[in-house]
């Protein structure tokens, strides 16, 4: 028989008290771990779906502008010292410290085109990145993919009287309207989209880019950090963060994270108090028994160990059960609370940290009662002293 045998027997003997401590620990571990996993799932989901929220950074050439007015009448402005952007800047953006957080880079070349005597703003785009970025686009016809494909905004198509399958000439070259966008309610309704390489050739601006739309996400750093890193690498460009749906969701997740932290702290605090009070009451009820242990030669440290071992055994058991519960409930919880599609699984590291944390918390809340027990006098074994 060892001290642990005495501790484990006591756990079995005081079933109600043990059950209370066990349930409290299991519930605390389950709730805290589930909330943590839900938050992590929401963040991961946001990282995975960030392209659905569109670009959140726009990179344009840095320029100096001089507003002109004459006699109080605005007569336009003058833009000068414009250094155009190039396709090679994609590599520059991909080279920043948080490069792994760059989801998509969509370069664009904006020019004015004339079709059938009508002027229309044309945008050369990389079909793949553009269609990935604009998840909200609905194309009537076929999604463009080739060098001779054109995509028209809803108002542009009506203005030019063109529809899917129509053939049209732009700067002397023939193109086919592969699709027309359903109305988006934005300026995109007035645009004509064509392949970026073709646009660079037609307007004799090889490799040039008017601006980049960048979709980036970083769960642990604000988008402003990525913004600043791109600015530092491209001093000739102006980098602007765009507060869009992703940012709104990030703020929502941050608030949820704060809420889960507060709730977790409360759960841990309540758990600690319950462990503390129930252990104190258990020590009070076992004063005579502890007196016997002390009388037969147990040092204070032995009593201390017995009390701690009892609670640590319950913490281990409660921690394991709490983790199993968290592993089962966190996925439906994340889907219901945060509308995430894919949830984060418990990693071995998470398991180890959760168990270690539950042991540490229970250890901390058991120290005082264990100390009180260890300080009891052996004379308690002799009822009349």
């Amino acid at each position, binding site marked *: *028989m060892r001290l642990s045998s005495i501790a484990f027997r006591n756990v079995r003997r005081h079933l109600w008290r043990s059950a209370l401590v066990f349930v409290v620990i299991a519930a605390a571990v389950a709730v805290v771990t589930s909330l943590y996993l839900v938050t992590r799932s929401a963040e991961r989901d946001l990282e995975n779906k960030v392209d659905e929220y569109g670009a959140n950074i726009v990179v344009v050439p840095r320029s100096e502008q001089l507003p002109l007015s004459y006699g109080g009448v605005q007569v336009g402005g003058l833009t000068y010292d414009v250094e155009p952007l190039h396709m090679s800047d994609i590599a520059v953006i991909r080279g920043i410290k948080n490069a792994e957080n760059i989801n998509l880079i969509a370069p664009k070349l904006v020019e004015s085109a004339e079709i059938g005597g009508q002027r229309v703003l044309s945008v050369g785009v990389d079909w793949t990145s553009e269609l990935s970025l604009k998840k909200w686009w609905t194309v009537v016809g076929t999604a463009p993919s080739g060098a001779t494909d054109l995509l028209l905004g809803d108002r542009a198509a009506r203005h030019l009287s063109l529809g899917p399958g129509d053939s049209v000439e732009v700067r002397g070259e023939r193109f086919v309207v592969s699709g027309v966008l359903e109305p988006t309610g934005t300026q995109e309704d007035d645009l004509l989209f064509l392949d970026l390489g073709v646009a660079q050739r037609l307007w004799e601006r090889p490799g040039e880019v008017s601006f980049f739309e960048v979709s980036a996400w970083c769960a642990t750093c604000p988008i402003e950090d990525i913004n600043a890193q791109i600015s530092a690498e491209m001093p000739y460009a102006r980098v602007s963060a765009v507060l869009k749906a992703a940012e709104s969701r990030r703020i929502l997740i941050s608030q949820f994270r704060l809420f889960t932290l507060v709730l977790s702290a409360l759960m841990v605090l309540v758990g600690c108090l319950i462990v503390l009070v129930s252990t104190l009451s258990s020590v009070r009820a076992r004063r005579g028994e502890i007196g*016997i242990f002390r009388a*037969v*030669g147990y040092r204070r440290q032995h009593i201390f160990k017995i009390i701690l071992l009892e609670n640590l055994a319950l913490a281990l058991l409660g921690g394991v059960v709490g983790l199993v519960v968290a592993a089962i409930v966190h996925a439906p919880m994340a889907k219901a609370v945060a509308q995430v599609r894919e949830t984060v699984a418990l990693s071995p590291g998470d398991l180890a940290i959760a168990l270690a944390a539950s042991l540490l918390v229970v250890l901390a809340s058991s120290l005082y009662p264990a100390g009180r027990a260890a300080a009891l006098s052996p004379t308690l074994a002799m009822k*009349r*002293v």
Partner: protein
Amino acid sequence: MALIEVDGVRKEYGDAGCRVVALHEVSLEVEAGEYAAIMGPSGSGKTTLLSILGAMNPPTAGSLRIDGIDVYDLSQERQADLRREYIGFVFQQLELVPYLSAVENVMLPLAILKERGKRERALEALARVGIDEQKGRRLPSELSGGEQGRVAIARAVVNDPPIILADEPVGSLDTSTGRQILDQLRALADSGHAVVMVTHNPDSTADVDRVIQILDGSVSCDDGPKVCAIPS
């Protein structure tokens, strides 16, 4: 040199506002192999004296030496070690731990030791008081009063301590069971242990070598059972 030497022990309880003197200048010696009974009416200080002899309750003044060691000069942890090495206790109502089997109760003083054969030593101690291995596996509640008493004695002697202290060991037992316990204590004294028993029952002192009568915290008589006997 006596095994137990009590010199000028005084014990006070309470604070300056309400001070109770439980023992006044008590001095006595107990030799190995001696069977002594501490007797006295309730509140006379006999249990306080036993707790001081048991290295559990430091006196306000005076000293206790066991085997020449000044007990209350030791740290509390060393006092615990000394209790384990030198003293076996038989408590009032026997005080077996109810959730441990008989053999585990006997192993209680050994549980903190890092040595092999603890169970065998406990079974041996039980066998010496007539409890077999099968009964040793039972919980105290599954044993008769006499068997529980013998388990309590086995627990007191499992470490082979030179001193056995018994606090009203038969107070709550029926006559027959009480007799068995007293016989065991006598046998322990005969085998060389110093046995000190607190009792208020004169019938329990029939076999003792010596009666120490305590009255109002002082030794009023310290002689053979016939000299210091109190009519029952």
